[in-house]
């Protein structure tokens, strides 16, 4: 039980959630809720692992993951944007479809070894006491990518013109439409981007942070946690970053609780009864629900809400007040 190691590991596993959540923030900011993150993530993980195994080229693997997630998300985009189907049900079926595809295509890949994305230490920054060891020492390339991704996404959404259009389409599509912004175009684009990030976060699992293919246990519900994180983060990338790391840290903490025989000077029950570990394994999911409860009351207090048009299909000519 070393605090520094737990923080180090928490940031690294939190990066998976962070990448998927930021993708979903983009999609939801445009008004498209994509609950298929879990499916796209799993498909991305499979695509990355299989490509890395077959070609030996890990960069090609990342490309495959991004495309796998992106292409799958286009199915959701078509059905919800053009056919105005219910986004909830469509997202759900996307999860089934992605899971099924990943299992079929990933058949026989379990237990194999494939090349991975490297870990490395940043020369100067790693010299900073404590922070250097936690953030910049022996972290995966994806982790460093995450450090850049969240602030960039924040800047893009709030401080740039395309970000302005993105927010306008998610808040009031009819207003954006009357000013010549293509609502469908924007929604397709960001749903696709969301899918790409979900696929990438899958690759982050299978060829980087916890390498390997373990069929549907590879993601084990992290896609859903990422969706919850978006709500908890109130659609803000910086909060998603914080939440992702916090969640990664808690997960690691729970795992480490089984280790020592003594805990805070008391007999550690998890060390003596291994069946109690099931309760530790429950906790991330319970925590997610609790975070949502907490998040909903704080959002209410601060009057922050979801993008106003989230989940609503846009039909031109139907008057929105």
């Amino acid at each position, binding site marked *: 039980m070393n605090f520094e190691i737990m923080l180090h590991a928490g940031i690294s596993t939190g990066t998976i959630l962070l990448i998927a959540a930021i993708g979903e923030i983009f999609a939801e900011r445009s008004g498209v809720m994509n*609950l298929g993150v879990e*499916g796209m993530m799993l498909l991305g993980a499979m695509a990355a692992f299989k490509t890395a195994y077959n070609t030996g080229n890990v960069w090609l693997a990342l490309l495959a993951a991004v495309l796998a997630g992106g292409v799958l998300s286009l*199915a959701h985009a*078509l*059905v919800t944007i*053009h*056919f*105005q*189907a*219910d986004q*909830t*049900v*469509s997202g*759900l*079926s*996307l*999860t*089934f*479809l*992605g*899971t*099924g*595809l*990943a*299992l*079929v*295509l*990933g*058949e026989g890949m379990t237990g194999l070894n494939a090349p991975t994305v490297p870990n490395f230490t940043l020369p100067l920054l790693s010299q900073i006491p404590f922070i250097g060891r936690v953030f910049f020492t022996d972290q995966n390339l994806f982790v460093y990518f995450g450090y850049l991704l969240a602030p960039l996404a924040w800047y893009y959404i709030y401080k740039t013109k395309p970000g302005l259009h993105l927010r306008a389409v998610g808040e009031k599509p009819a207003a954006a439409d009357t000013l010549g912004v293509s609502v469908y175009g924007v929604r397709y684009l960001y749903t696709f981007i969301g899918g790409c990030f979900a696929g990438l976060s899958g690759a982050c699992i299978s060829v980087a942070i916890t390498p390997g293919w373990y*069929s549907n246990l590879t993601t084990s*519900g992290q896609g*859903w*946690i990422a*969706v*919850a994180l978006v*709500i908890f983060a109130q659609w803000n990338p910086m909060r998603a970053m914080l939440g992702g790391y916090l969640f990664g840290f808690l997960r690691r903490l729970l795992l480490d609780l089984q280790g020592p025989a003594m805990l805070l000077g008391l007999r550690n029950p998890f060390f003596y*009864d291994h*069946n*109690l570990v*099931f*309760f530790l*394994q*429950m906790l991330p*999911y*319970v925590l*997610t*629900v609790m975070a*949502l*409860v907490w998040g*909903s*009351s704080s959002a209410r207090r601060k009057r922050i809400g979801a993008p106003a048009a989230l989940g609503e299909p846009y039909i031109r000519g139907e008057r929105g007040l």
Partner: protein
Amino acid sequence: MRLQIVKRSEDPPKWLPIATSLGAVVLAFVISGGILAAVGADPLQIYRYFFRSAFGSWGAFSDVMVKATPLILIGLGCALAFRMKLWNIGAEGQFYIGAFFSSMVVMVPLVDVNTTPPIVTIGLMMLLGILGGALYGFIPGLLKAKFGINEIITTLMLNYVAVFWNNYWIFGRWSDAGFQMTPTFPRRVWLPRLADLAKQNPFFSGMTLHVGVIFGLIVAVVLWYIINKSRWGYKINLIGDNPKAARYAGIDIAKNIILVFMFSGALAGLAGMTEVSGVVHRLQERISTSYGFSGVIVAWLAKLDPFAVVLVSILFGALLVAGREIQPSGVSFLIQGTILFLVISSDVLMRYQIRLVNTKKASVEEAA
């Protein structure tokens, strides 16, 4: 000539919903076949095998109905919740908790199984299964009603919690000599099966179909009545169509969210009970092969109609029976996902018409 999509001005014909559902199923098999062929499998052979292992004999059909039983119960529960636009994806968890609650009767034990009349024990197991599922549905219902928390995420998270909860008991406290399951329950608490009639009529020997399927049929009728005839059903339909109007009309929405969630959970819990008492006769790992998720698709494919749920469940039962034997293992997931996708896409046909337009004529009209 070109295709033109126009908004329907009149109601779609009555046969269209059925036709699109059927079409979606057929198309899903075609698409999945394409994917299977692409990965080097022989789809025709898989489907032939599929059909044979599901409908090849009365025995096989009995297996299909065994798989269909929990799907009917869960599908009906989902259909009711979906009518109120409550996305209960937590039937899987409610199923596990129902199974756990009913197992308590034997494992704790709550009654002396050997002296109590079987009908009392089984009745108690049913009651507890229903109670367990309802309680587990109460949690997301309450969170949704009081805090407005997205029920999809809470129910999904609770699914994982339920699985770990069950694991704790079957790996530890109730484990049968270290195996990951409880000891087999005494025959007295098994639900009656067709095979029990084998002495009178050898035709039934080996048929595992149990009375749980009758529960499913009864619930289908009850649900049809609730939806189409009762005050409660009227409220559910009204809330589902326009919650603001329902509130305006003086209907307590929070109360009904919780009630519907509990009802939906209760049916999943009952399904868990029938699986424990009718099929596996103990509590063990993976008693559900994603029934909770298939139930969602069943409800949607049946367009939330109780009797259609029964028919669709049989089809999906066949998918599951065949799916457990064929490789690769994700095929039935793949087909289910594709079916659901096609069904929701085909809904566009309810609202729009696709017409072949003679380009020449159309351009003349436009010019005029």
